[in-house]
């Protein structure tokens, strides 16, 4: 291209480094000076809240705590909100992970921060199980034989002597199955929900939430907290603003930036299509 690029061309080809810098600035500004825009509550999140609200106080909860370093910022706010919700009801929680080797450490960290507030006792009201390899096979194995798959917990303590684990005979003893992960609920629906009839509520990253909608509308999962927005909605329902609420303004500005950029690109695209050069 010898001649100086015209406006439509430039509108379509903004340097990515400028875009990246804009993203950083637009994230930083609302974090420095929060606006506090409220979020409307979506049906999936409300259903998730109601499902957890409906379980009796003190019941057993199985939690697939599949968090890893990559999706921790997105999943942690909702997980913390769930911890508060369950601990208010003094539910007994068994956390395990199949897809993420890093998850037990995150579960331990979250328990240490939130559990203190409610004086939770490890081993009686909360257990972190170690990571298990084998993906879908491991989920099926846990369903068949939870004690055989987890003879020890993450810290190496024997589980058969734990008061919490002695209460559990099989999977149907759990009142609800929670799932926090960057994967869809498919595997858990296939190997736990349909097989043992235990209700399930999922918290997914944004990327898999749309796929999970098919399970939600089929009634195979009871609720869905999708992405950070879902977490912010959940915090509102719980009346306990947490980290997600603070992050939502930055989410707003970046989404706005995306839309503006897309509009500029399309204006350029149509202008150049009508012009002599033609689009791509």
């Amino acid at each position, binding site marked *: 291209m010898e001649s100086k690029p015209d406006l439509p061309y430039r509108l379509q080809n903004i340097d990515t480094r400028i*875009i*990246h810098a804009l*993203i950083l600035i637009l994230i930083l500004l609302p974090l420095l000076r929060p*606006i506090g*825009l409220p*979020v*409307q509550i*979506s*049906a*999936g999140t409300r259903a998730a809240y109601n499902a957890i609200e409906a379980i009796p106080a003190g019941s057993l909860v199985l939690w697939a705590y599949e968090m*890893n*370093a*990559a999706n*921790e*910022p997105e999943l942690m706010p909702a997980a913390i909100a769930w911890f508060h919700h369950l601990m208010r009801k003094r539910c007994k929680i068994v956390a395990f992970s199949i897809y993420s*080797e*890093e998850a037990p*450490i995150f579960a*331990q*960290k979250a328990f240490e921060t939130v559990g203190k507030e409610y004086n939770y006792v490890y081993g009686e009201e909360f257990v972190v199980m170690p990571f*298990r*390899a*084998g993906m879908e*096979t*491991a989920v*099926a*194995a846990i369903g*068949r*034989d939870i004690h055989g*798959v987890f003879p020890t917990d*993450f*810290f*190496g303590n024997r589980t058969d002597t734990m008061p919490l684990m002695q209460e559990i005979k099989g999977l149907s003893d759990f009142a609800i199955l929670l799932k926090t992960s960057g994967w869809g609920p*498919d595997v858990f629906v296939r190997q736990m929900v349909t097989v043992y009839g235990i209700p399930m509520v999922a918290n997914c990253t944004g990327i898999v*939430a*749309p*796929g999970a*909608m*098919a399970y*939600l*509308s*089929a009634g195979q999962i009871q609720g869905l907290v999708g*992405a950070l*927005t879902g977490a912010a909605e959940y915090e509102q329902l719980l009346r306990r603003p947490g980290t997600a609420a603070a992050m*939502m*303004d930055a989410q*707003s500005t970046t*989404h*706005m*930036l*995306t*839309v503006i*950029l*897309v509009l*500029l*690109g*399309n204006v350029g*695209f*149509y202008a150049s299509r009508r012009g002599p050069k033609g*689009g791509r």
Partner: protein
Amino acid sequence: MRKEIPIAVSFLAGASIVLGFFLNVPFFKVTASRQLLNWAVIVAAFALALGAGNLTRIHVTNAAKRGKHWPYSIILLVCLYGYLGLGLWRGASDSIYQWWFNGALVPGNSTVFSLNGFFIISAAYRTWRLRNWRAALLVGTAILVVLGRVGIGQAMWPALGPISDWIMTYPNAAGMRGIMIGAALGTISLGLRIILGIERGHLGVES
């Protein structure tokens, strides 16, 4: 024999699990499937080390040959074996182990992953062009949902929230469900091929 035994193993293992699903026979339904599943979990744990072998070979060769970026290969090997040694010695719940976990591994992985966040917006900018009706549908939906799920969009037009909720619950669920039914058929056919021993790709190249 090099092919027959593996095929027999996958047939016996797979068939007992499938039979356990259909037939109410305690051996298949309970005993066999419980043991097989537990065994598979254990064998899969060994597989976690497989990648390390490859990685070690590549980077040892690279460092020895002074290949491209060889100092980094040494960093990688030191981190791999040093960290593994620390973990084996002190255990994963140890505080020093977790210090490095939270100080290096978590921020590192999280940051590399977050590069996606930059790329996805520039990708949206570059690709969301209204070229034809298909692209227009995709872009239109995406814009509605992008705005509809955050406070700023809902403040501009309160109906956006319910609209994006509706899109997620009906047309999106329909598309995902259709894809899912198709994928389920694919999974069934793959499982069948494996159990019956007609799918042999996983057994590797015949030498």
